[in-house]
């Protein structure tokens, strides 16, 4: 509040009695109504506060007055100030002017700084575009960076064979802790390091290649290969291998009895009867109703340690098995062991890829031979029994028919084998052979 403004509203010589207010009383009498009588301005301001309440002083100042007020130094509000030039006030007035000038200069400097900052900010899009331009031309210079391993590379492009380097990179050599080993696996172990057994990768590679030959020949012979991997993360590897080998996959729990009790457990599953060119055989509906559910011709297990029931059933049903055997696993549970790390998913993917490719090769050879007229497999027991049964029924029907015709019994020497063959061909069709 401008002290010159408020002085006209207050009686002069009024003392301030509030002890909280610092007193600086000037009792020099001055003419009343003099708007410029400032020698009592200090008292007036404080009386104003006492008389009109703190709200008068605390009321928000009109905005238009702020600028001129802020230009004045703080001393102008609290000490006795005069606009009239008196001898005592010359020095203070110079100081005030200097202060006001410096305040104005600092204001100007701040404006300049703000403008400079704006100019710098305006340069940012330019600088950024320039940066992008430079990076585009220089960032990739010097080398082509290739990542060494991408997860799932063996799933996208399954290799047909695994070299020792690939097996090492897949950590296939890392066996289990030495205290957990099965001494029956001693023949596969290269040594000990860091408390684990190290599997000899040469034996891994040799066993893997043998297992691949088994899978290939089973597929060539028209066999059904079941790929099993029930651990978390093995699903994709197992499914991919089954796709390549045109077999079956299992990545969830093996239901006990799926082989030994398959007549019950698999009774709802559908069957197909196909010829050597993989075409469905005509007129086999009755046959389908009579056949038992199939069992796999080969089981490939990625984690035999968790699938004892499956492998035991395979043993009971004479189904050969291939298993990835770690140093703590029992090698006698499977027919063909592949000594390798069963904890590494990268190893699982690699081994599944190699075996899947082997199955794919076998299927391709089988089809190639079939197109040449060579059937690489023999009909299954169920189909053979059905065929013989049907032949016998037809033979009986023929005999009865002949007996009903003219009384003369024609003595014709018919060999049972020839008749069976002829009737068999007519009943089932030539292609089935």
């Amino acid at each position, binding site marked *: 509040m401008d002290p010159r403004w408020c002085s006209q509203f207050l009686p002069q010589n009024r003392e301030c009695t509030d002890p909280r207010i610092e007193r600086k009383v000037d009792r020099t009498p001055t003419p009343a109504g003099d708007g410029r009588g400032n020698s009592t301005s200090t008292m007036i301001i404080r009386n104003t506060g006492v008389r009109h309440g703190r709200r008068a002083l605390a009321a928000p100042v009109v905005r238009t007055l702020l600028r001129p007020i802020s230009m004045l130094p703080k001393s102008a509000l609290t000490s006795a100030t005069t606009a009239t030039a008196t001898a005592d006030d010359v020095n203070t007035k110079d100081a005030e002017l200097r202060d006001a000038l410096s305040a104005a200069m600092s204001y100007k400097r701040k404006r300049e700084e703000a403008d400079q900052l704006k100019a*710098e900010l305006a340069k*940012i899009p*330019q*600088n*950024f*575009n*320039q*940066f992008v*331009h*430079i990076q585009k*031309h*220089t*960032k*990739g*210079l*010097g*080398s*082509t*960076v*290739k*990542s*060494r391993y991408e997860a799932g590379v063996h799933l996208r492009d399954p290799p047909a064979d695994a*070299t*020792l380097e690939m097996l090492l*990179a897949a950590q296939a050599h890392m066996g289990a802790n030495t205290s957990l080993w099965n001494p029956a696996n001693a*023949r*596969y172990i*290269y040594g000990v390091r860091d408390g684990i057994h190290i599997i*000899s*990768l*040469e*034996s891994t590679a040799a066993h893997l290649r043998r297992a691949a030959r088994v899978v290939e020949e089973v597929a060539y012979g028209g066999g059904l290969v079941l790929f099993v991997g029930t651990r978390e993360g093995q699903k994709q590897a197992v499914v991919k291998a089954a796709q390549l080998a045109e077999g079956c996959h299992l990545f969830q729990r093996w239901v006990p009895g799926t082989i030994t009790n398959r007549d019950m457990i698999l009774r709802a599953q559908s069957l197909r009867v196909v010829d050597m060119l993989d075409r469905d055989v005509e007129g086999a509906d009755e046959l389908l109703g009579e056949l038992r559910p199939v069992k796999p011709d080969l089981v490939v297990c990625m984690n035999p340690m968790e699938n004892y029931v499956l492998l035991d059933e395979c043993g009971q049903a004479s189904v050969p098995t291939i298993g990835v055997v770690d140093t703590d696993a029992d090698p006698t549970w499977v027919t063909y062991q592949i000594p390798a790390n069963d904890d590494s998913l990268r190893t699982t993917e690699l081994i599944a890829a190699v075996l899947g490719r082997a199955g794919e090769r076998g299927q391709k050879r089988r089809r190639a031979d079939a197109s040449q007229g060579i059937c690489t497999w023999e009909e299954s027991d169920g189909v053979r029994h059905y065929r013989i049964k049907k032949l016998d029924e037809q033979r009986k029907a023929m005999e009865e028919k002949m007996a009903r015709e003219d009384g003369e019994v024609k003595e014709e020497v018919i060999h049972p084998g020839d008749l069976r063959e002829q009737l068999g061909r007519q009943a089932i069709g030539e292609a089935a052979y």
Partner: protein
Amino acid sequence: MIRPRLRIPRAPRLGGLAKPCTTPSPFAAAAPSLFRPRSIHTVPPLDFDDGKVPGNWLLSSDGYTLSWTNWQGFLLHKLNALTIGTEFEYKDLKSVLLETARDPEFAHIFNYASAAHNNHFFFKHLAPTNVAIPSGLQTQLETSFGSVETLRREMVNTAAAMFGPGFVWLVLSKPAAGFATFKVLPTYLAGSPYPGAHWRRQPNDLSTAVGPTEAGLGTARQYLEDTAYGQGRASAAAARRKEIAPGGIDLFPVLCLSVWEHAYLADYGVGEKLAFAERWWNFVDWEKVQDEATTGDAALRTKA
């Protein structure tokens, strides 16, 4: 059990049969090989990847094999060996060189990264035949140097005057205030022109630039001040030289000439650096230089 034998791919033994330096070295990643160690950084492809360089070119086939295939392969092989297992393992090469420029502890990584980057920069800006300077670029060069012939002499003579390996760069300098201009900048050994790697710009051969003269002492003082500033000692002069505003770009390279000996040794012979530099001028890809030498704004000074 078969006793397995450890198979490690080994480098050829020293003192063995002398083979010509132009056959692909074991480090060259040009042809895939079963026994090549698996690298992260691999030699990037160039236009002459089959090794058949154009006839009557700056380098012959042998020279190209030596100074690109073998040399770049060696640099990247060493870089891989130094960075595998460190924080720089999966970073691209330019990021590696910018991050290792300041700390002397990583000086060896910087050396190989920067040398590989500079070598590729040199080869990238070579054309199979003579390319004429586009008129826009010619105007800009004439503004900066007076004439293109002056620029040529500047670069070639700088190259001839440098003792030992290094590179001679044509850079576009963009000061904070004023116009952008072209400048010639030599960097010794594996020095880098990028502002982000200014600690290792190496524009002076300290063995010859530093001496008892005023200029020599100034160079030495500057170098020591900058080094001390890098290690934390306050220095206003060094701060002015070294500090760049965040996102600020004060210069970037657009062309370079390699004066490493192996670049010219096979085809030009010992001591024929000047002949090599003069012949290099005929095979600069000026179209590429023009593409890269833009500033994004119109602040590139041209002859009005």
